[in-house]
């Protein structure tokens, strides 16, 4: 809002208000941290009270032109100046955008998930005032070396938010919110989704047990399922059921099941089942 507009608004306010009596006019940029000038008619000294959202002050001033330093106008909002039996009010808006507080959710997300990543950017000026004016904000999400998903949003009432799909590739994705020269970076770890097509092979171990080992375990986008993930191998034979909860190590899971002449072997990770093998006489 420029000074001409401000003067017009103040003039209209003063016209409408019987208390104003045409004695005080305010001019200045109207931005937080900028000086404001009061034009006070008459002569001699008087007491000026200034009430604002960040505090109140009292001083003795000479009628005429009085400057209120920007230090007293850091907090955006409505200010009221009181002089003798008259008063006037004016608004201080936020200064230009200088800082973005960027909140993202979640910090880990499965690859290729629709609408799984949320980002909210809170726009602040240098004095921590929300920048309420419509402000364009750009959001970018992507893992290095893969396509970046970008969305442009106009921030309203100091907030801009976006909901994005996660990428198909696992890894640390950079999630960036930027507006003008200001940008903030977060990392959203893209992780492999549920395993896809688990396949195992079985062979006889040197000690006679059954050695089962999976192929490399990947999700449906081709990302390696992280090490440490539980893979359950099961053998069912005439002696009963045997299970081993193995951990994926270097992309593979392996375990030893008890020796058997005829057994049905199966593999699963979470709720995803893999192939089944009929071992020995069951073939």
């Amino acid at each position, binding site marked *: 809002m420029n000074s001409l507009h401000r003067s017009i608004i103040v003039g209209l306010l003063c016209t409408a208000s019987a208390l104003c009596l045409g004695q005080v006019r305010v001019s200045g940029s109207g931005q937080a941290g900028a000086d404001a000038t009061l034009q006070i008619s008459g002569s001699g000294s008087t007491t000026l009270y200034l009430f604002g959202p960040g505090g109140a002050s009292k001083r003795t001033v000479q009628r005429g032109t009085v400057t209120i330093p920007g230090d007293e106008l850091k907090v955006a909002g409505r200010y009221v100046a009181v002089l003798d039996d008259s008063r006037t009010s004016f608004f201080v808006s936020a200064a230009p955008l200088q800082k973005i507080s960027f909140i993202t959710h979640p910090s880990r997300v499965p690859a290729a998930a629709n609408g799984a990543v949320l980002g909210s950017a809170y726009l602040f000026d240098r004095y921590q005032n929300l920048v309420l004016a419509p402000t364009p904000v750009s959001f970018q999400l992507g893992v290095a070396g893969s396509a970046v998903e970008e969305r442009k949003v106009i921030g309203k009432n100091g907030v801009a938010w976006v909901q994005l799909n996660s990428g198909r590739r696992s890894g640390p994705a950079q999630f960036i919110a930027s507006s003008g020269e200001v940008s903030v970076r977060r990392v959203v770890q893209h992780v492999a989704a549920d395993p896809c097509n688990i396949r195992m092979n079985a062979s006889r171990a040197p000690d006679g047990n059954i050695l089962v080992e999976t192929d490399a375990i990947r999700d449906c986008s081709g990302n390696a399922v992280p090490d*440490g*993930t539980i893979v359950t191998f099961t053998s069912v034979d005439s002696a*009963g059921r*045997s299970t*081993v909860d*193995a*951990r994926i190590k270097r992309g593979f899971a392996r*375990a*030893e099941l008890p020796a058997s002449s005829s057994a049905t072997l199966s593999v699963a990770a*979470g709720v995803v089942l893999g192939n089944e093998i009929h071992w020995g006489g069951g073939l």
Partner: protein
Amino acid sequence: MNKILPVVLIVLAAALVAAATMHSSTLTPATTPEGAVQALLNHVKSHDSEGAYRYVAKASNTAMPDFARDIFGETGNLRTYSALQLFDTKVLREGDQEASVRANLQWASAVGAVYDVRDLKVVREDNSWKVLWPVQTRAKVPPQVIPVNYLRWDIVTRGSDDDWGAQNVEAPRVRIISMNPVEKDGSFILLGEIENEDTVPGFVSVSATLIGKDGQQIAQEESFDKISHVLLPKEISPFRIDFPNMNRSSIQSVHMQPNAMLVPASADPVMGVMHQALQKDPRGHSVLTGELMNQSGQTVNIPHVLATFYDNAGKVIWVSDGYVDQSLVPQTPVPFSIGVRDDLAAQIHTYRVTVNQYSRDHVQ
């Protein structure tokens, strides 16, 4: 006289203290098979391994240290945190030289009461009855180096001086994948399974709130130890929440709340559950038996077995658990047996066994 009296009193007091604390070194011979078992168990109850051992028959071929290890535990296993609290005996068969006595034992342990049934053979030896107490000799694991290079997850969280919008690491995503309410013996019981869907480990629990017909909360319970609390990625645990003295007809709805916390964890040790089978115990009750095999190099002090039972539609129809009083040393199978509801045995189509591991070095 003034000097003699205190001396006499001190000597008398010392004699009384000695008499009270000293155990009789002589054996009171057992004249009946049941008396022998009771005498042995009474000594176990008073934590007197030597006294108890005097009622063990030589034919047992059990050395005193092995007997003490069997009764009072070793390597930090559950038996070392237990004490025999109650027992009762019943003669199953009695002959001139040999008898069979069933002992129902109740141990007070760190995890609650543990019940054990032993059918003991009692033989006549040296004109008195003594108990055959064979102790299974464990296969010794040869000295070796077992390389352990499994993952470990550590966590660095947001600092207190970080901006309020700064990023933090989140709790793992967990999901209840099945739930089945049942009633038994006047209790309302919630059974189900929970999965860690994330790629990081989590400490999980499940709580349930019962809402009555008037819309008011009538009870709240947690899964407590009927769950594997630390779940690695894609690991599934059963859970069971008991509401004692609760009628299903008084419940309008149930609110389930899975809770998960990100915790440091290790992917070690790996446990195998071998040769699981549904069987009948000597009393004719259904039990699930099997062997636990610690496939890693670290001793597991207190194993906790959780079993999930499914019907032919794949629905969870019961969850039971049991603590094993032996520790799991590496590469050595240890038998386990947990109770199964007799009334459900015919409906059980399949089952799944998981193992919680409590070790002195770390808890998982």
